[in-house]
């Protein structure tokens, strides 16, 4: 099984690949917003836009998501996160989602999303 790895980055010094994909499955590392300046709605919007961009690199979109896990710094943000979610999620085909709270690795970070998707398209050799 060939494993494709893209964007080896640092999570505060810990090495990670932002995308790991086999010919069947796609894993995205915990995805943070581009900036932590905004409120949780803006941070969620930004993180989900990055999900779109990363999936697009593989020729996929949110319809390929098997499950998306949302970590919220505080469950009090649930409503605001959902507002951004509903702007993003396909109303006819929204992804499966779980959401729980957990302290994230940086105090100003309000949301992190973790994506598992499948490869629906052909994989180039």
């Amino acid at each position, binding site marked *: *099984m060939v494993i494709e790895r893209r964007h080896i980055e640092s999570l505060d*010094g*810990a090495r*990670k*690949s932002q995308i790991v994909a*086999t010919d069947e499955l796609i*894993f*995205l590392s*915990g995805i943070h917003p581009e900036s932590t300046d905004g409120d949780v709605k803006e941070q969620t919007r930004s993180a989900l836009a990055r999900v779109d961009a990363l999936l697009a690199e593989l020729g996929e979109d949110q319809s390929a998501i098997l499950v998306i896990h949302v970590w919220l710094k505080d469950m009090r943000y649930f409503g605001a996160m959902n507002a951004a979610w509903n702007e993003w999620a396909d109303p006819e085909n929204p992804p499966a989602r779980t959401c729980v709270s957990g302290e994230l*690795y940086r105090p100003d970070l309000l949301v992190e999303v973790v994506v598992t998707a499948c490869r629906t398209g052909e994989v180039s050799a």
Partner: protein
Amino acid sequence: MSVTKFGRVTGPPSPNIHLGSSCRSMVSVCLTPSDRSGTLAEQTAQVLDNIDQYLRDMGSSRQKLLMVQVWLAHIDEFAGFRDAWNDWIDPEHVPALSVVEAAAARRDCLVEIRAYAAPGTDRSA
């Protein structure tokens, strides 16, 4: 698609679980440290070494890691995790990674790690 389970744990007081499972697309193993006397770095190294052993037993390996989900009891001790992580991963085969704070069942358990890896055998048959 058949599922193989491994690492049977029986209780009480332990829960009745398997520590890992595999199917044709993926191997999954989720562990806490058995020796909880050490620092976060030591507990992390111990869990990662045990994951290594389980992956080998399942015909997979550290080089086939896809995604690793980490729960730390105290996110402000991230550096301890990072050092053990960077020592352990194969720099040529860096998995996707997510790290958040969430308490494990036991208060002295500083880390819990779930790893997903590609299976070791070709499934072209």
